[in-house]
């Protein structure tokens, strides 16, 4: 299945993958399906709650891009860190953070991961090694490089997975970070989620070099374009990049070619692209449908798949229920956590 924007495959990609990703085991397929479905249903519910006014401010949905975080997470080991920008709900769920805590943060309740003080764009989990959730475009790239610096300092063998979008990829500090990461051989995987639009500006209108896998060339950082709609391709690329980092060879760039079905945020009228474009990607390349079709072809029953769907819906509905009934933070919380 083709990537949304078929770019010339890099020589490296052909060499390692031969064009088609390694097959998943049935367990891997089922896990990928379940984790992607959880993100999809969660985001659909968040969209609903936003429409009802239960979620305020900005709310950036991850629908369409699920294979990226789920595939990458399958390539990681305990202790590896994850950091991203503001489109972060999927990343949090993929790292194993609880749907209740994430949804309650979206509604600004005391049971949220940040006690209701962070909101959609600012959540963290020390336990799951999730370092946010950052609202300033590109800032997470330097921070994620710092996580890798700490891994190097401690020689702990961990890898920092630093996500950012095609828009952030044009920020200056990204290149400052690339330079230091390669100079110091830091274990960081830069995952560029190219969903083709930086808010409303298409890649072709904003980027002089549209092959993001080449953005590290002048720093000698290897890069690879990956079909970010195929969870198997994502995991294979993640495995390769993680092995590179753990071998002490420094950073690795993965350009994930993906697509978001929804607007930039909930308040996006999406005039910059056609409905047909969105429908075509959804119909031809949906990451969840790809897995579902493979599972059905491998004789997994509809009933088994429905059971997964039901389990996920239960989690999401429970989180929505919790997030709407959990109390708002105590007024005294206004003054806590400024200093420690």
């Amino acid at each position: 299945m083709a990537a949304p924007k078929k770019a010339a495959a890099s020589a490296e990609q052909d060499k390692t993958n031969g064009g088609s990703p390694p097959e998943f085991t049935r367990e891997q397929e089922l896990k990928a399906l379940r984790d992607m479905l959880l993100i999809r249903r969660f985001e659909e519910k968040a969209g609903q709650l936003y429409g009802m006014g239960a979620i305020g401010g900005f709310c950036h949905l991850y629908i369409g891009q699920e294979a990226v975080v789920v595939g990458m997470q399958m390539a990681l080991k305990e202790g590896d860190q994850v950091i991203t920008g503001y489109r972060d709900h999927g990343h949090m769920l993929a790292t194993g953070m609880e749907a209740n805590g994430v949804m309650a943060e979206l509604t600004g309740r005391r049971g949220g991961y940040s006690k209701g003080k962070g909101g959609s764009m600012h959540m963290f989990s020390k336990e799951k090694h999730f370092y946010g959730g950052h609202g300033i475009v590109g800032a997470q790239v330097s921070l994620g490089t710092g996580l890798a610096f700490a891994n190097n300092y401690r020689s702990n063998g961990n890898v920092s997975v630093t996500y950012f979008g095609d828009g952030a990829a044009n920020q200056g500090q990204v290149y400052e970070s690339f330079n230091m990461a390669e100079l110091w051989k830091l274990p960081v995987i830069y995952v560029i989620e190219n969903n083709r639009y930086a808010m409303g500006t298409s890649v072709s209108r904003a980027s002089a070099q549209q092959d993001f896998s080449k953005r590290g060339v002048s720093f000698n950082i290897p890069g690879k374009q990956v079909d970010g709609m195929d969870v198997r391709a994502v995991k294979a690329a993640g495995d390769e990049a993680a092995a590179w980092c753990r071998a002490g060879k420094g950073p690795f760039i993965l350009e994930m070619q993906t697509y978001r079905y929804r607007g930039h945020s909930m308040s996006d009228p999406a005039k910059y692209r056609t409905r047909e474009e969105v429908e075509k990607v959804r119909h031809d390349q949906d990451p969840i449908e790809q897995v579902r079709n493979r599972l059905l072809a491998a004789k997994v029953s509809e009933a088994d798949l429905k059971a997964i769907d039901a389990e996920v819906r239960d989690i999401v509905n429970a989180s929505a229920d919790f997030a709407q009934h959990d109390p708002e933070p105590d007024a005294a919380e206004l003054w806590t956590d400024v200093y420690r």
Partner: protein
Amino acid sequence: MPIQVLMPALSPTMEKGNLAKWLKKEGETIKSGDVIAEIETDKATMEVEATDEGTLGKILIPEGTADVAVNTPIATILADGESAADLAKAPAPVAKAAESAPATAAKAEAPAPKAAPAPHAVAEPDPEVPAGTEMITQTIREALRDAMAEEMRRDPDVFVMGEEVAEYQGAYKVTQGLLQEFGARRVIDTPITEHGFAGVGVGAAMTGLKPIVEFMTFNFAMQAIDQIINSAAKTLYMSGGQMGCSIVFRGPNGAAARVAAQHSQDYSAWYSNVPGLKVVAPFSAADYKGLLKAAIRDPNPVIFLENEVLYGHTGEVPKLDDFVIPIGKARIARSGSHVSIISWSNGMTYALKAADELAKEGIEAEVIDLRTLRPMDTETIINSVKKTGRAVTVEEGWAQSGVGAEIAARIMENAFDYLDAPVARVSGKDVPMPYAANLEKLALPSAAEVVEAAKAVCYR
């Protein structure tokens, strides 16, 4: 006529240096570009290159001489056809553009000598120092270095990163010797990428490491201010207390000397505006040491504002195994009953000089060194104003939305009924810092302005 070689200034703030070594002897031929001598400052050893051709006539300052003032004639060069007998004709040693340029310093202009070191006389003993403690005399530069070295010995998670902190030994030699003791893993030279390395430092701190991020000056930290405020200062709150950031951002702040608008700015007001940050700006050598140690141990992000002009100044530092001064406490540097003068960092230079002047006229000023700007020690300010009824603030930064404005507001809120006069502010003038020596002097506060303000609030 024989040419005089003058003691060159090797940096904007250099006032004097040691003549370490003569590399040419009297009577030797000198070509333009020859290294004729080595000069040591407290920051570095530099070579002096000849800019004139001829013969080294007479060495006026022998090697090994310490504390030679900038612009002192150190030798004479005889042109072709001149002999030692012509030496008498050499011009009198008056201030004149240096004929010799240091190898790396900007050419032509000889920076004006700075004023004499600030008085560091402190009337009040520091409550943090037990009576009878042995004191050692150190420069502020050394006090800072010792503070970092001690904390790095104590805690393996503490490391230093910044431009030229390691192999170059610090642009201002504050990190001198740290690379040798702690190695390249913990003393890290960065590329010139303030925004990026500030973010790297914050990211490392989020995992529990304790970075000391040196900015060559705080002027360059404007490139990094997003990471300082949006990432370092806010993460603890935004994470509901889960993830904080123990990090020190340090470096020289405020006006240096003759480096003009982009390199001379006081950021006290900027950073002290931000909840989540602590802001420290000491004046005395002991405070520099004790407060930097406290800043490194603090679990929060701390902005540690140093002052380049003060780096070479000496002071008494207690010889204690572990001398830590708590953040957030002001100190009464001189007690008095007629007017409270409140300042910090290099502003204290003007404040203390003014207090000396005022004493001659029978006005006893109480001088408060805030030391920490956030959290501000309001109590010490208010107690003083309740006693004196009058207050003057002194800062190098601009007045509008400045720290002085904040102090005035707090006095009004907390001691309005005790005031016998409106609070007066002495500040940097409301202009970018000019380059010309006379204009620069006018742009900065002066002891005379502090004296004038103090008299005004005393209706004298």
